[in-house]
């Protein structure tokens, strides 16, 4: 399979602009800004079928078309490099090993958005990644691919690397804007939508790193080429899959959209970590999406296939769990994450996430009560759909799916007042 997004990462000095240019880098930007209108760029992305790779899978071209056609105020493109969804580490790979691909995608996107500046919001922990981006931005400015008079066309667009400081919620697009404005990372109620009233009140589009990294090739090789890769016209392109957990070869794998999960686990991933501990469960799209039981794992990794299984591709963070995993402990750990990361603004998430975590802790510690399982599900149901942002849903779905699909395990913990998973160990 042809490497698209990962074609540069193994080259020596892959981060340098020289290497990037030698491999055809910035051709896409040059073509876009010198021979296409912003509307034509948007159209190309629409035709490619590209869908957001940050977690929501929203059609990118459609999102881009929400920006005002007529520019009367400042426009902004924000690159969401806050990658914090558990199980996800693909954006990091791109930024650390091939930052220019991200930057070129940002600049083409900025052109399509008629943006005055593109801010790359990178999570605070990615210190090395931020440094790679900083150096690449300086190189891009020096060669006229960013800043004033981009590619000699007279279009000015700044490219700025902005570091976060430790908050998963800032990956939510409206919280990213609030954080960029210098405040607590609280999501905003929508409407108004970012394309009408975004950062500093100006029309704004927010896109994930990988999503933007797909754009240069769409421009150079054409949307039809991109749309020809993958499952169908709604699940297109080359995709980065993050594999982790009880697996021989964890890591990032590039494959066409729609890669069979079993192929990822058994072939690319080298199979289960321990030969005597088969697959028990798998979360296919980052911890926010519902878990799959082993027998549900004969599926393809694309947006619609997983949606049909009532889960999701999300951020493509595939977390593999073998039979040594205590699902109660796993859920407790996941719930702790959401309770820790909740911004605290709205009632159901703020209070409910902590409540669920504390109930799970007592079940795990052998102090669970008979009503706890149904109570957990009920709390999750009361959070879902009632919050300002999707973190509430993201906290609810794991609870709902775990206690439904592994109910017997939770019941056993409560009945026997201890962990009943044989050989539960974590190494």
């Amino acid at each position, binding site marked *: 399979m042809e490497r698209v997004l990962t074609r540069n990462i193994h080259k020596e000095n892959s981060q340098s602009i020289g290497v990037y240019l030698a491999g055809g880098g910035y051709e896409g930007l040059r073509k876009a800004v010198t021979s296409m209108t912003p509307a034509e760029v948007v159209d190309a992305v629409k035709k490619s079928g590209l869908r957001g790779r940050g977690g929501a899978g929203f059609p990118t071209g459609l999102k881009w078309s929400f920006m005002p056609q007529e520019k009367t105020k400042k426009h902004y493109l924000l690159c969401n490099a806050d990658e914090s969804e558990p199980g996800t580490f693909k954006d990091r790979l791109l930024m650390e090993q091939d930052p220019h691909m991200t930057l070129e995608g940002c600049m083409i996107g900025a052109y399509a958005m008629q943006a005055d500046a593109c801010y790359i919001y990178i999570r605070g922990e990615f210190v090395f990644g931020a440094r790679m981006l900083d150096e690449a931005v300086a190189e891009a400015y020096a060669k006229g691919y960013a800043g004033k008079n981009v590619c000699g066309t007279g279009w000015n667009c700044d490219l700025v690397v902005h570091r976060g400081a430790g908050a998963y919620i800032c990956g939510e697009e409206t919280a990213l804007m609030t954080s960029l404005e210098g405040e607590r990372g609280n999501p905003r109620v929508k409407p108004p939508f970012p394309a009408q009233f975004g950062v500093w009140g100006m029309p704004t589009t927010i896109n994930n790193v990988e999503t933007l990294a797909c754009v240069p090739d769409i421009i150079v090789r054409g949307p039809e080429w991109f749309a020809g890769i993958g499952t169908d016209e709604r699940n297109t392109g080359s995709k980065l899959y993050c594999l982790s957990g009880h697996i021989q070869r964890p890591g990032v794998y590039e494959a066409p959209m729609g890669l069979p999960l079993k192929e990822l686990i058994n072939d690319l991933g080298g199979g289960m970590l321990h030969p005597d501990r088969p697959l028990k469960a798998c979360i296919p799209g980052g911890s926010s999406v519902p878990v799959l039981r082993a027998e549900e794992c004969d599926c393809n990794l694309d947006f619609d296939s997983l949606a049909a299984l009532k889960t999701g591709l999300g951020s493509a963070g595939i977390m593999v769990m073998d039979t040594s995993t205590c699902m109660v402990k796993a859920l407790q750990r996941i719930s702790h994450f959401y309770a820790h990361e909740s911004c*605290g603004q709205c*009632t*159901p998430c703020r209070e409910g996430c*902590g409540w669920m975590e*504390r109930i799970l802790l007592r079940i795990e510690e052998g102090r669970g009560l008979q009503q706890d399982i149904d109570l957990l599900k009920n709390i999750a149901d009361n959070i879902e*759909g009632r919050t*300002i942002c999707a973190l509430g849903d993201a906290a609810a779905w794991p609870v709902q799916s775990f206690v439904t699909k592994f109910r017997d395990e939770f019941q056993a913990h409560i009945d026997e007042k201890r962990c009943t998973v044989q050989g539960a160990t974590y190494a």
Partner: protein
Amino acid sequence: MPKVTIDGVEIEVQPGTTVLQAALSRGREVPHYCYHPGLSIAGNCRMCLVEVEKAPKLMIACQTQVADGMVVNTRNERVEQAQSSVMEFLLINHPLDCPICDQAGECRLQEYAVEHGTGVSRHDVGKVAQSKAVDIGPHITLDQERCIQCSRCVRFCNEVTGTGELDFFQRGDRTKIGLYPGKSLDNLYSGNVADICPVGALTVKEFRFATRVWYLKNTPSVCAGCSKGCNVMVAVGRKQELMTSPGQMDDGIKRIVPRVNEDVNGHWICDEGRLSYLKLESAERLPYAQDGDGVELDWEVATLLAVQSMQTAAATGRLGIIASPRATNETLYALKKLVDGIGGARIGTHRNHRGEDDNLLIRADKGANAAGAATILGTEDAVAVTLAARNGELDTLVVMGDSLDPADTIDLHGAAEDVGQLIFVGPFVDVASKAAHLRLPASAWAEEDGTMVNCDGRIQLVRRCHRPRGEGRPGWLVFQDLMRAAGVESSAWSEWGEVYDAMRDDLDAFGGTSSAAIGLLGLSTGTPAAAGA
């Protein structure tokens, strides 16, 4: 104009109106915490979730704008389930403080728990504890764990006062309201955060444990702290069955809170006005008519003595009057009729200025009725009258005491020695009363009904909230008694409205108005005060 159907009732609203505003405007209560008409929309409490037909999820009414043809249900099973779940979430970490919390009886958590809650707690995994009874400012106590994170107080300090003292710290269910270390919530409007706090997280220190709110009798009135005339609700402790604490039923003012008037003070009041009753309640009062040595006089005798002295001085043009800018229009009009009837006097109004106007409500002119005084009595300053007294031009000087704050009474600078007779009319023992030869007690603010004109020319009603102390009586009644004693023809006024209407018939400035038409929100005359500013 968009039409929306709420619970089967179709209403038409202005574009931009939210579902919550639409519902509330028709008296349809949708429970909510974080929304406040004087602040920006936050949308974070989630209590106002309602069903909008064709929308997949429940939507918050406070932020959803009405679209033409929208159909909303606020009372069906789906909405009620959401409401009870939000109530449950709010209560899981909320301390069971009702027995010791000032908010009880006017607490939205209590009210909505009864109306929308399940009545049973399913939470038994330990509440998140925070700090209690934290002193955060001269007038405010914070109980962090009672807070439901509605953010009203943060928005108030950012949007209304622009002082930004409060913010949220930490995140998740560890979120709490706090102050920057070493700072104080000391803006001049800090008390308002206690009003807008839907629970007992922010409370006014001066009201802490004073009384239960259900023992309060509320009277709508107007603050007399400055010329802005913010609309208020004055709460007096009243006698009740089963009351065991005498302090609660002493008929004293227990608190003052703002009353909404979009044309005057919006939703707010300054701290000084809010707490003005403290001076009032604690000041020493003139208990009865008395002479300069404090010997009690019979009222008939006192008024006769006063009037004789005034008439004699008036006959030779040597009568001086210093009027209070906090007296009601009715009192000042009765004074004018008295003076006209006994032959005239030099009248000046005390100019009570302190500090500067701010960009919110505070006015440097502390004369709540300075505009009324200027209209009724003219613009002569009291200083001129005092000077006349010092120059030996007056035989009798009548001084009106301040009706709100004894410290605001004019200092005569020894003029008492320069006149033959100093007559004092007012409620308090103060600088002027101590120098007087004759003292007639009048009622204070909140003890008489009457009208005042604010700095924007608005005629507003101050109300009697409790009995006058001692033998105090409304100023217009004192002056009417003096007119009778002087044999001056006068009407037999028995209540303020009669005085007002007589004044209206007499003075063009009040033409076209009537006492019956003034109402709770006052009457705009469109003429801002020109009074000697």
